[in-house]
């Protein structure tokens, strides 16, 4: 099977070279090519969502404002409310939600406020780009990071536009770019409602009239 995969990759790579279409400058991570509204609203434009269990904690991470350039400070907007939702009983409704938003101090420095981290302090506030103590040995972070998404987005676009597979396994459209992230550790005990199955998703929202 391995051999087969390799042959397949080679085949596809060849096709890609022949095709090679231009990149879409608005490419956005795993949630690429988003709606016009989300694409126009970088701070609220979610790219990727990660969640995994590590021992007694559950880590969730959200990326937004992708394709940021090296050296950037990140993208912060005090009008956006981010939510990381956990359904712990399978009804597709959130049973726990971590809310996050950004704000500035008098000097214009950006800070972040997390609320509702399961098992953690009710509120966690601190500067961006700083590891924050969320209580119970849990930690939270908001700030700019290297974009963790790896994907040949150019190949994806070419494939959907031409109807011919055009992926190139050596082309990571997101290499060298940054993204702004929320990274939160939650206590597994604080999340689970007694069951072993949990379901997570993330949202961004604004107030009516401010979108």
């Amino acid at each position, binding site marked *: 099977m391995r051999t087969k995969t*390799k042959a397949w990759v080679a085949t596809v790579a060849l096709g890609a070279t022949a095709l090679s279409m231009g990149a879409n400058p608005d490419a956005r991570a*795993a949630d690429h090519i988003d709606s016009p*509204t989300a694409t126009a609203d970088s701070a609220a434009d979610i790219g990727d969502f990660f969640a995994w269990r590590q021992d007694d904690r559950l880590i969730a991470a959200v990326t937004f404002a992708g394709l940021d350039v090296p050296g950037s400070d990140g993208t912060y907007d005090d009008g956006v409310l981010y939510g990381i939702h956990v359904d712990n009983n399978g009804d597709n409704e959130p049973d726990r939600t971590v809310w996050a938003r950004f704000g500035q101090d008098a000097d214009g420095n950006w800070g972040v406020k997390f609320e509702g981290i399961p098992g953690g302090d009710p509120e966690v506030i601190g500067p961006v780009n700083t*590891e924050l103590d969320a209580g119970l040995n849990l930690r939270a972070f908001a700030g700019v990071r290297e974009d963790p998404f790896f994907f040949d987005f150019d190949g994806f676009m070419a494939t959907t536009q031409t109807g011919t597979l055009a992926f190139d396994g050596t082309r990571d459209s997101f290499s060298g770019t940054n993204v702004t992230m929320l990274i939160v550790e939650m206590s597994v005990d604080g999340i689970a409602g007694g069951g072993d199955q949990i379901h*997570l998703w993330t949202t*961004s929202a604004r107030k009516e009239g401010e979108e």
Partner: protein
Amino acid sequence: MKRTTKTLISLLTTGLLLGGCFSDETPPVEGADTDGETDAGETDDVDPPDPPLPPPGTTGTTGPDPDSSGDASETDGETDGETEFEFDEAPPEDYTVQIDRTGMPAVASATITDREAYNAASPADDAAGVFVDDIVANLTGLHEALDDDLIAAGLVPCDVATCVAQAGPLVIPDTLSIDLTMDAGFPNGRLPEDTVMDVTLAVVLLDLGAAGQGVTTLVGLNPTENDVEFSDQFPYFAPAHQ
């Protein structure tokens, strides 16, 4: 099954090191966060009680903090003990305009036509079947366009009914599901290093019941690892490119 992915990944990893990423692996400074900051309970803004946060130097995790080079290290630098961030105090229910949502990687991008409606909706809407027709129509279109290529590459595409049966449980509703009793790794949650796109493509494009085909068959179609290494220590994701 997910661990197989990992093995495959390492096997297939070839020359993906792209430019511009002399990564700093940033050993996160553990003790840096021990105290300081926020403590519970407080409903309103920050509390000056404890020296808000460790001094800039101890923030190791952030690695090269973009700010620290330019101005006196954002926040900490000049606000010692005075950090008073102002946040909008409106309750979550006031944020009525949902701009975006994501659970599973790539679902909206690959299979949804009306993304405005999709972004404004919820997993409950997904489960109620609101977007099923859209997803099926897009899967059908995808196969009409790509099946010839798949077959030419020696692969067996799924017919639409099979694709829907394979992908449906994974992408509807659009949430990342985790069985806490199982090892972590896509699709049991998503680790930073998981090759989620190729696995998802296999589920959507291939007949997983065909001999020799599985969820990892397409791994390698796209890059199999990030341009910068991840860390198993908080904050897990690599410092920004400078």
